[in-house]
């Protein structure tokens, strides 16, 4: 397949456009996603290309958006809904966790919810505490949900395609720091644009990146870094900055987790650093850390370390002190390299 450079917004848009062309049961809706194409333009042109009833605006009711999508999906449609910011997903939390997640189970397989909830998430755009949150761990705890987070345009398109085709509900978080331009972890330095990057070379046609498979972004021998979304780039920068031969794993899917890749890597390196932007306490890093030490205990040469957001709301003026940057990753790497004491 020939490719063109796309930023993440274009790649996601392309995934939606392909799937809507191919499958009449796929439709897209959310706040401002119809005529206007979404405040981040991910659903741009879909209404024009596919018609008013296939890409439309909704009332400002996140619970209504997801609740309606649940009903539609039990009819046999594959709705892809947008929650305008992940910070606003909580009003829909009940429909997601009590309904979509449990539908197949509680009905003995009679009703299912092949729906996707897309939502821009994460910080680094001066959005303050209500446009910066990373609530992924709150969904990983819910049996029956899949949770997917891409870190680059190529994966974004392939993963969204797989999410739409998945027969179970998928929560799909899109790191908005990576939407327009790439990010190399250092917020104060210029960065080469997506189009200069290999992972932004995206086929126009449909393709899949499988849900449940991690991507090894960088092979290495000394320490394993587990990251996803924006933090993949921070991890790479942090490893380089520390001058450590780190293996950087982009999880891509939190549930189901690619435990094999993780386990093999940590058994090889003997060390593990986990990076996420969400607050530390009960963030997904806790689960990862527990799994790693449960499965690789006798290979570990230092405690599994976590580099995360602080246990505070996301504060507007202190964006870059809150955001876990390459320096903190480098510090953690150095610490685990010396046994983490």
């Amino acid at each position, binding site marked *: 397949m020939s490719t063109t450079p796309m930023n993440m917004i274009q790649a996601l848009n392309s995934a939606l456009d392909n799937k809507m062309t191919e499958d009449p049961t796929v*439709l897209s809706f959310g706040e401002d996603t119809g005529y206007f194409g979404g405040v981040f333009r991910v659903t741009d042109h879909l209404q024009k290309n596919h018609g008013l009833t296939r890409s439309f605006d909704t009332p400002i*009711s996140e*619970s209504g958006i997801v*609740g*309606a999508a649940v009903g539609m999906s039990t009819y*046999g*449609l594959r709705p892809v809904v947008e929650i305008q910011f992940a910070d606003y997903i909580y009003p829909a939390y009940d429909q997601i966790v009590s309904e979509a997640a449990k539908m197949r189970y509680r009905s*003995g397989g009679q009703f299912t919810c092949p729906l996707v909830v897309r939502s821009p998430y994460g910080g680094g755009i001066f959005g303050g505490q209500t446009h910066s949150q990373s609530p992924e761990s709150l969904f990983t705890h819910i049996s*029956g949900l899949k949770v997917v987070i891409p870190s680059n345009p190529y994966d974004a398109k392939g993963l969204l395609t797989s999410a739409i085709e998945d027969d179970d509900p998928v929560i799909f978080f899109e790191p908005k720091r990576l939407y327009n331009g790439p990010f190399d972890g250092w917020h104060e330095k210029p960065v080469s644009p997506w189009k200069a990057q290999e992972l932004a070379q995206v086929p126009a046609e449909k393709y899949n990146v499988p849900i449940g498979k991690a991507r090894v972004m960088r092979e290495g021998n000394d320490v394993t870094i587990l990251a996803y979304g924006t933090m993949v780039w921070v991890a790479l920068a942090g490893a380089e900055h520390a001058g450590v031969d780190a293996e950087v794993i982009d999880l891509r899917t939190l549930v189901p987790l690619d435990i094999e890749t993780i386990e093999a890597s940590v058994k090889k390196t003997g060390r593990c650093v986990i990076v996420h932007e969400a607050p530390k306490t009960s963030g997904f890093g806790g689960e990862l850390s527990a799994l790693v030490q449960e499965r690789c205990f006798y290979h570990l040469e230092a405690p599994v370390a976590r580099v995360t957001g602080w246990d505070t709301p996301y504060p507007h003026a202190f964006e870059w002190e809150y955001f876990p940057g390459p320096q903190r990753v480098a510090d953690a790497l150095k610490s685990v390299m010396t046994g983490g004491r």
Partner: protein
Amino acid sequence: MKNTPPLSLRVPEPTGRPGDKPDFSHLQLDDAGAVERPEISTEPSQMRDMAFRLIRVLDDNGEAVGPWNPKLDPDTLRRGLKAMILTRTFDDRMHRAHRQGKTSFYMKCTGEEAIAVAQGMVLSREDMGFPTYRQQGLLISRGYPLASMMNQIYSNAADPIKGRQLPIMYSAKDYGFFTISGNLGTQYIQAVGWAMASAYRGDNKIAAAWIGDGSTAESDFHSALTFAAVYKAPVVLNVVNNQWAISSFQGVAGGMETTFASKGIGYGLPSLRVDGNDFLAVWAATSWAEERARTNQGATLIEIFTYRGAPHSTSDDPSRYRPADEHEQWPLGDPIERLKQHLIKIGEWSEEQQTAAEAEAVEQVRAAAKESEAIGTLGQSRPSVKEMFEEVFAEPDWRLVEQRREVGV
């Protein structure tokens, strides 16, 4: 700031508590036949008063009167009556089964049988009903096997939903019966979404949903009405106002201030209010809404006015919070009794037939119980424990595989 007298908090209270004489003097009931029937194409703005009236067809003499009389043939009426009798008989037996320790839980719909039975008959089985736990009459009126209901209630090896849900949380897709949720209200917006899906696909199925008076306060009620109005979804939205929500009277949900039907006005939905103990009135109002939805004219809100005769569930004791004889004093009577009287009045039924029908219902339920209990009641029989791990996803992930292995099933 002005110097005004102190404010005070108003907390609503019902007209009677245990020991008090039931008082229904606040109810404003229209006479049977008194309420006009608007054309189905009427603009909602032209029929707002309907939300404050009460559609009734059966009068005190058992006569069907007025513009809402659906003029059903006697066979249909008899089918309805029998389904109501069967529903009540089933409830009584299952309530007893709980006392006998055969199940962990049960919920009756005593006094509300006309609702689900009439509506289950008006709507098609290809339509989808999004019920609460008090519309077992939908299943019964459509001939869903009573033994399957019991298997679910007993969580036994033949439970269609594999032991995963609390008793009475049926799911019966082929009977147009959506999987019941324990979470109040969630089904309401799902019904709207399902109806939108049918419209989106250019099909001609419609949805129907039920919610209790108490549960109208939930958020999903609001989002359902909003989406139904904005997208003109083909759905019949029923509010079953049975006066109680566990121990809270309907005033706690706002019923002292206005009718539940009037909530439709603020969304521009046509809104009807109907005597829920009048089989014919429920039938008529539902048909009106059904035709409106089916002809792409959008959703209707129907408040169905009734009384919860039984305890909320087997965990409840209403004598602790309402006058003991309130149900007997309910001015709209009993739906079975009223339809029976009507049938007798028009010469299509007799006390003997009634007695026979009741006996037949007991027999049907007994036969079903025999069949179901042969498989087993709660704890005696159950689906394979591996069902705990199945259908979390279409395909289990490694965690479920490992965990299942740990249990050894």
